[in-house]
């Protein structure tokens, strides 16, 4: 046959290997799954953040202890991850609102705004991190 091509084995089932190394998400796909992951992360983190808010408002000593705690390197990293999660969830959410209104759904715009969301959230995270410490 003239149009014979190499046949790939089908059907192909999802495996961890496929998920990690073979399926390459397009940029809007990354924004979408990161929106979900950041949302889940923030929901779980509310417990910790409420604890910190509680301590910091309870007394002068509590405030000081939270401040010292937030200065520890691993805590800083965790807080920065949460700041990023908030920024990403925020920016991606605004993008999804525009998509709801049928704006920015064409390929070129969708790719552009996805890149923008990823870049702006990282920039915001860096800026807020710099402001906080």
């Amino acid at each position, binding site marked *: 046959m003239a149009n014979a091509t190499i046949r790939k084995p089908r059907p192909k089932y999802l495996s961890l290997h496929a998920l990690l190394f073979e399926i390459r998400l397009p940029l809007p796909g990354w924004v979408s799954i990161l929106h*979900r992951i950041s949302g889940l992360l923030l929901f779980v983190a*509310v*417990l910790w953040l*409420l604890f910190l808010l509680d301590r910091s*408002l*309870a007394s*002068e000593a509590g*405030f*000081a202890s939270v401040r010292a705690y937030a200065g520890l390197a691993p805590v800083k990293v965790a807080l920065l991850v949460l700041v990023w999660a908030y920024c990403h969830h925020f920016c991606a959410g605004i993008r999804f609102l525009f998509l*709801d209104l049928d704006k920015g759904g064409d390929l070129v715009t969708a790719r552009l705004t996805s890149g923008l969301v990823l870049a702006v959230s990282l920039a915001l995270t860096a800026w807020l991190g710099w402001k906080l410490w």
Partner: protein
Amino acid sequence: MEAVVERIVTGAHYGLRDWLAQRITAAVMAVYTVILLVVLLGGAPITYPVWKDLFAQGWMRVATLLFAASLAWHAWVGMRDILMDYVKPAGARLTAEVAVLLAIAAYLGWTVQILWR
């Protein structure tokens, strides 16, 4: 013959309400976030008296409560979406949904306690 409607015991309602609620609560939280950032970054350095006075003001308590209520509803819709996508057995999903709801209720109670202590 009677029409058989297969109702699924766990998961979504059958309408627009949650979809819309997720977007409206998102807008409320976005407004609060911007206000808080302006207050925190625009004012004096955050010391304990500044921090305490900020949350002692009536408008701040009410605004924070509105934020928390929005977060509760928003997070419920989001978590339920995640559970509907990844947890298929009805029993496991129902258990997880109940756990999420209980966590949200506890978060809300704690928030009220922190704000009006």
